[in-house]
């Protein structure tokens, strides 16, 4: 129990964070060959650690949808579909090429090509509709600021469509100007600011103040 208490201390993860951070930063600025080889091995190890988390998602999904099926709660039929397809994909996709499984398995590939691909592409493309309805509802010149977004946005839309640029060639130049001056200035300002934000966040983490990601007592506190 004593041991358990020690292991629970928040200082351990904070120390791990700091070590992992320094392992990446130091070899970038300082020429220490030994350190950079350790850092590169660590990088690969971190990728593995992340890969090992893969089942966290599966367990969480099965807990939610399994429970729904068990309780026959609203939409439980759909939960069966979820569970079944998770199982099919995980089993056929196991990395055991020797047994005909894995990413070359025919069932796995068929589902990938004819189910996952159309679903992904379509969900992405549904944005065209949302953007159109946003155009008519939200893009209104309510005040000066909204008017600026509206005018610059509409000019950009015209600048991208040959039907407009062919009849009014100057539209192409105007849209390029918007893109290269005000847009560039915005992006650059936000970008420099974000860099500052990231550095400040790093300092807070290194000083052990930023615990957003370690927050929460959990357990039996």
């Amino acid at each position, binding site marked *: 129990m004593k041991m358990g208490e020690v292991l629970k201390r928040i200082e351990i993860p904070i120390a791990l964070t700091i070590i992992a951070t320094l392992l990446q930063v130091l070899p970038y600025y300082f020429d220490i060959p030994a350190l950079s080889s350790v850092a590169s091995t660590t990088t*690969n190890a971190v990728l593995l650690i992340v890969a090992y988390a893969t089942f966290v998602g599966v367990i969480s999904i099965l807990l939610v949808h399994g429970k729904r099926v068990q309780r026959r709660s609203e939409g439980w039929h759909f939960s069966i579909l979820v569970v079944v397809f998770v199982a099919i994909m995980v089993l056929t996709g196991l990395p055991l090429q020797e047994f005909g499984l894995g*990413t070359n398995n025919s069932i796995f590939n068929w589902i990938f090509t004819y189910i996952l691909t159309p679903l992904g592409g*379509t969900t992405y493309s549904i944005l065209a509709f949302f953007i159109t309805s946003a155009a008519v509802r939200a893009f209104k010149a309510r005040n000066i600021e909204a008017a600026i977004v509206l005018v610059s946005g509409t000019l950009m839309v015209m600048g991208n469509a040959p039907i407009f640029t062919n009849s009014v060639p100057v539209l192409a130049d105007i849209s390029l100007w918007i893109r290269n001056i005000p847009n560039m200035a915005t992006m650059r300002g936000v970008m420099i600011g974000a860099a500052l934000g990231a550095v400040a966040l790093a300092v807070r983490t290194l000083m052990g103040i930023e615990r957003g990601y370690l927050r929460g007592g959990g357990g039996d506190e």
Partner: protein
Amino acid sequence: MVEMIAAWTAVFFTLGIYSLLYRENPWYRIAESVYLGVAVGYGVSVDLLYIRNQWTGQWNDSAGMMLLFAIVLFIGILWYGRFNKSTFFLYRWPLAIVVGTGIGLALRTVIDAQFLQQIASQVRTPFYVAGNMGATINNILVQIMVPSVLLYFWFTGTARESAPMKVVEKIARYTMMAGFGSAYGYTVLTRYSLFIGRSQFLLGIPPNDPENQLAFWIIAFIMLASMIGWDMTHKKAPVA
């Protein structure tokens, strides 16, 4: 026959997602649930393949590396502490390593690519370009706009509330709004490009399967008819 089933399946799921445009409905829920299941399973198989390739690729070289691989595996297992009350806190260890690596990567590169390089190109924007009026004006605009946007995000202290800063704030807001307009314009292009791609698929325009077009019209008709039919027969009584 097999090809026909494939085409019809793909069209069915495509339209299942689009059916959301009419309203939330069982077709959409079928597509959504299948997507959920397949996507999760797919992610797992990709990760497992990666782990295996890493092992055969470089970790099984020497005893030292194998030992390290075992340690990494052990750390990876700690993620699952989350699911048990007494080992709950252990998931924070792998998490801390992952977060630390991320912050480290940010520190080593953000300063250069996003801070210094961007300031360097500000420096390379002189206030006067000999013989080029247009470029001079543009450069001056950039020299006003970029610092304004940067200063807009000034959060602390009393100087922020001073009168000159009010002007800077105005310039910054206007600049950003024009900039966001440009983002809007380009997004329209992308989203419609995607929708055009899906439409070419549904119409069976090469290199897509021509079979798709028939499936498109029939399945679209069935889905729409079922939803509209349901709405007509289940019309809510008007609220008094």
